[in-house]
């Protein structure tokens, strides 16, 4: 009998409505919208309609949006576009590797986080003085602000952080949060990943709020802000997925939050020595990160896979360079024996009960070796 694997990884299939629309989007939107022809003007109309719809769903005027075919490069555009020579880049210790890479190439300041995954207020005070120092030197500071962490789901207290840094430019990373967190009170650039609302992979959305500050950070000729080679059918499918996801987002979020609370309660009541990264109250409702003491993450993944459950891991044995997750290490959470369970819109309570049973069995077996 074929094994049915229940998916608890961060990857999700395309939203059914986007999937349905994709074929016709390829049929109708294949022409270059910038050219002069009947097909091109049809493609242009579809493009404008999709961008208007995305802008409306995100609460950002369509003219501020740009589309990038390589989502991780989109985050670079958002951050590096605000930076000038000599500017200080401020980022948190749990930020994504792409931001850490930019930070290593210039003057930067890393803000530590606590066990709960949040930047603590005392770090903010020193940060504020750093920012004012930067201003005295006629340089400025840019804050790379991750709205929600992809490994732990922790949503940063971003409005509080921004209010402490009035003179700092803000580049927001909404790649994980998607529409799960509102736009901040003040921001200069933002980056979204279409995947976060079950849109197609391979599409990043850059929003430029401060048009006088942001500049294309890559070598370029002419006034174009980004290369503009993102696939039009994917933009159309992304707009449809976002519209569909946004329409019942609140109901879905509430249901997933309840299910995550149940999952966390079940795991901690049934398995000893388990470390949970982040509090559910200040996290995305569907991401749960557990670390089990004395257990090897990869072995745990294999046991669960055999039992028919696919999950992710942040443990070192699963990383390409065999180093532990910098996010878990920065928080002080156990890095070995880690699994990340992402609840899907389709996940039922029975799925969670069976998953917990499988984890309980696997952890007990691995600890008894």
């Amino acid at each position, binding site marked *: 009998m074929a094994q049915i694997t229940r998916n608890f990884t961060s990857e999700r299939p395309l939203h059914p409505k986007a999937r349905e629309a994709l074929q016709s989007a390829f049929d109708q939107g294949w022409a270059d919208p910038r050219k002069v022809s009947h097909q091109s003007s049809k493609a242009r109309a579809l493009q404008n309609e999709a961008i208007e719809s995305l802008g409306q769903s995100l609460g950002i005027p369509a003219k501020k949006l740009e589309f990038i075919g390589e989502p991780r490069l989109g985050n670079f555009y958002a951050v590096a576009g605000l930076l000038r020579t000599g500017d200080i880049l401020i980022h948190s210790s749990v930020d994504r590797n792409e931001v850490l890479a930019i930070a290593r190439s210039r003057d930067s300041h890393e803000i530590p986080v606590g066990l709960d995954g949040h930047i603590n207020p005392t770090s903010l005070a020193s940060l504020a003085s750093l920012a004012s120092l930067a201003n005295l030197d006629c340089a400025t500071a840019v804050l790379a602000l991750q709205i929600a962490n992809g490994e732990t789901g922790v949503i940063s207290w971003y409005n509080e952080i921004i209010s402490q840094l009035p003179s700092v430019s803000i580049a927001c990373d909404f790649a994980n949060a998607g529409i799960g967190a509102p736009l901040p009170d003040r921001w200069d650039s933002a980056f979204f990943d279409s995947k976060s609302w079950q849109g197609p992979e391979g599409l990043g959305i850059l929003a430029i709020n401060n048009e006088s500050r942001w500049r294309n950070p890559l070598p370029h000729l002419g006034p174009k802000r980004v290369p503009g080679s993102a696939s039009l059918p994917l933009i159309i499918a992304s707009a449809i997925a976002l519209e569909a996801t946004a329409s019942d987002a609140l109901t879905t979020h509430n249901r997933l939050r309840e299910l995550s609370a149940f999952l966390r309660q079940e795991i901690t009541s049934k398995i000893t*020595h388990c470390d949970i990264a982040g509090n559910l109250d200040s996290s995305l409702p569907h991401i749960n990160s557990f670390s089990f*003491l*004395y257990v090897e993450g990869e072995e745990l993944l294999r046991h669960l896979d055999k039992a028919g459950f696919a999950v992710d891991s942040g443990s*070192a044995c699963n990383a390409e360079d*065999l180093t*532990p997750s910098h996010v*878990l290490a920065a928080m002080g959470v156990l890095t070995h024996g880690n699994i990340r369970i992402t609840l899907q819109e389709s996940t039922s309570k029975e799925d969670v009960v069976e998953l917990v049973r499988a984890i309980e069995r696997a952890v007990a077996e691995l600890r008894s070796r």
Partner: protein
Amino acid sequence: MKKIDCLGLRCPLPIIRISQEIDKVAVGSQLILLSDDPATWPDLQAWARMTGNHVQQRDTAEFSVVRQNQSGLNGH
């Protein structure tokens, strides 16, 4: 002072070894853990928090572990 040599071993093995050894010594006793795995220091600190023991980094690959947990529930 007993030295637990875990050089070359990957996590969670150094943490498993220290948890096995710590229950064999009296409360207040110190052990030295030698480990060069990059996950050891963050994981040793998390282990200490979860089990109620005390740890300190003495060198890049050398850690001091003091048993403070009296109940012997170090768990492995």
